[in-house]
């Protein structure tokens, strides 16, 4: 390729002092970061929908409907909490969908932002601060989380597993579980210098056990006491319990209700604060 000297590129130049109002970017920085993340997400929208709905739908069909029939046959259609197995299972699956949706948007993109493509450094070379990057990434993650939950809710509604009245409440609870867990995971991902399979380990030894032992498929009290602690510290269980109380009125004591919300929102707040500190430190290096 040779330098084309026949055409002089025209460059209009007002100058940043007139052109850029720092206050605009300072106020809206997080939204611009979220805009970038959503633009990236749209490149993969088919995979996002397929993965987001694929797994929970498989669980819905195989366990909710398949095992559900077995359970309902053996203990009756009001066997667990006085409702059908599918109704019992649905809020838990929504929480799973919410957690998974948000998780995918905070883990890989963070590794990409700091290590693979260093795009967070590009953002930070503009007015955008470390905190705004954290907030923007979380906003985009929550957008995906909410979308995924909502689509899944429509699916569950079609199967008669939830009522349409419970849609907003279940959305809020499941998104809160996604927020709590993904904020902590965002702080964790921000510490990773290179991908040496750490997310696969987290997937196998944190996310999967959380899914299996948090009262998703059966009440947590059915587990031996030495396994119940997994549920107690898991946003999956706290979200699921709140979801069940909203969906079909599963009784939850007041103190436990407060504990469920505190844990989900507390995890989110602590995760965000940690992420702010780690991002600030790493971007200033």
């Amino acid at each position: 390729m040779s330098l084309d000297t026949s055409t002089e590129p025209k460059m209009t130049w007002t100058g940043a002092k007139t052109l850029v109002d720092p206050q605009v970017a300072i106020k809206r920085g997080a939204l611009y970061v979220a805009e970038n993340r959503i633009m990236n997400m749209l490149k993969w929208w088919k995979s996002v929908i397929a993965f987001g709905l694929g797994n929970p739908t498989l669980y819905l069909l195989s366990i909710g409907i398949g095992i559900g029939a077995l359970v309902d046959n053996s203990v009756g259609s009001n066997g667990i909490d006085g409702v059908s197995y599918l109704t019992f299972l649905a809020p838990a699956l929504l929480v799973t969908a919410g957690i998974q949706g948000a998780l995918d948007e905070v883990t890989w993109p963070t590794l990409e932002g700091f290590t693979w493509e260093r795009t967070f450094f590009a953002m930070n070379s503009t007015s955008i601060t470390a905190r705004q990057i954290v907030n923007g990434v979380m906003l985009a993650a929550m957008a995906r989380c909410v979308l995924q939950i909502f689509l899944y809710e429509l699916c569950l509604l079609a199967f008669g597993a939830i009522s349409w009245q419970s849609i907003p409440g279940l959305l809020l609870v499941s998104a809160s579980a996604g927020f709590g867990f993904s904020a902590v995971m965002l702080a964790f991902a921000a510490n990773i210098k290179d991908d040496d399979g750490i997310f696969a380990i987290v997937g196998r030894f944190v996310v999967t056990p959380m899914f299996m032992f948090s009262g998703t498929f059966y009440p947590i009290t059915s587990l031996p006491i030495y396994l119940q602690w997994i549920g107690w510290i898991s946003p999956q269980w706290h979200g699921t319990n709140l979801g069940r109380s909203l969906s079909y009125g599963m009784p939850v004591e007041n103190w436990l209700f407060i504990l469920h919300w505190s844990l989900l929102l507390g995890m989110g707040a602590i995760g965000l604060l940690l992420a702010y500190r780690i991002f600030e430190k790493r971007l200033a290096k």
Partner: protein
Amino acid sequence: MPKKSKDAEDMIVAKGLTKVYGDFKAVDGIDFTVKRGESFGLLGPNGAGKSTTMKMIASTSQRSGGELLILGKDPNKHGPEIRAHLGVVPQQDNLDRELKVWENLMVYGRYFGLSRKFLKGKINELLEFAQLVEKRNNKVEELSGGMKRRLTIARGLVNEPEILMLDEPTTGLDPQARHILWDRLFRLKELGVTLVITTHYMDEAEQLCDRLMVMDKGKIMAEGSPAELIKKYSSKEVLEVRFGSENNATVAEQLKGIGDRLEILPDRILVYTDNGEKALEKIVKKNLHPVTSLVRRSSLEDVFLRLTGRSLVE
């Protein structure tokens, strides 16, 4: 666009600027000023403190000591405001590989709060400037190294910055790609954009910089225009002679008195003189016959060698 003059506004003022990482002083109390419209270079080997200085000017890394004013503001207090008016081209490209060429310019422009309408026009200009019009809809990962570099520079211009900072802009590029890039940067210089460039390539510094700061081990070794530095720290010409690696040191003893100064490198001897040909005649008269000889003009490499006793590119 304002042009530079002696009374031009101070864009960057550093006094006793220091950056410490643990026990290591990456930048050790340096003073310098950059005026509007100037093209200012930081020259030095890897680890000299150039990039650390750049990060402090870019207002992303806080200084450990001293004073620093960028566009009249303290970056420790007004980082985001200052960054709104800077353009940064980092050493390592940090483009969004998933996005197309034009999308990269769009998202980066949005970070400054610029409207999509304005950016649409600006992107066309920048693509033309960076000779990437035909690559507009390509994904970044499909571009060559030189194209990515040009896109990163175009991206750094999206907010029409008061200062454009380029950290090792041509490292890793082939000679042709480097020349295309130099041409583009030269055009920016002509437009009057204030440029701050780090490099360890002396030819790049000579081509692009009005004024240079030679750095080594976090300190300023010398400052001035490329011509001033060469005049002050080197001779007009340099005679390079090779007698074979094993003989250079012995022969050098016999060359004393020829030229102003000798520099003995492992593979060759440099004779600093105002007339290389005459110096070579004197050597031959001593019945010494170099394997190869070369007369060339003094360069910033010689300045650096004189100041630090080390080569720039190691």
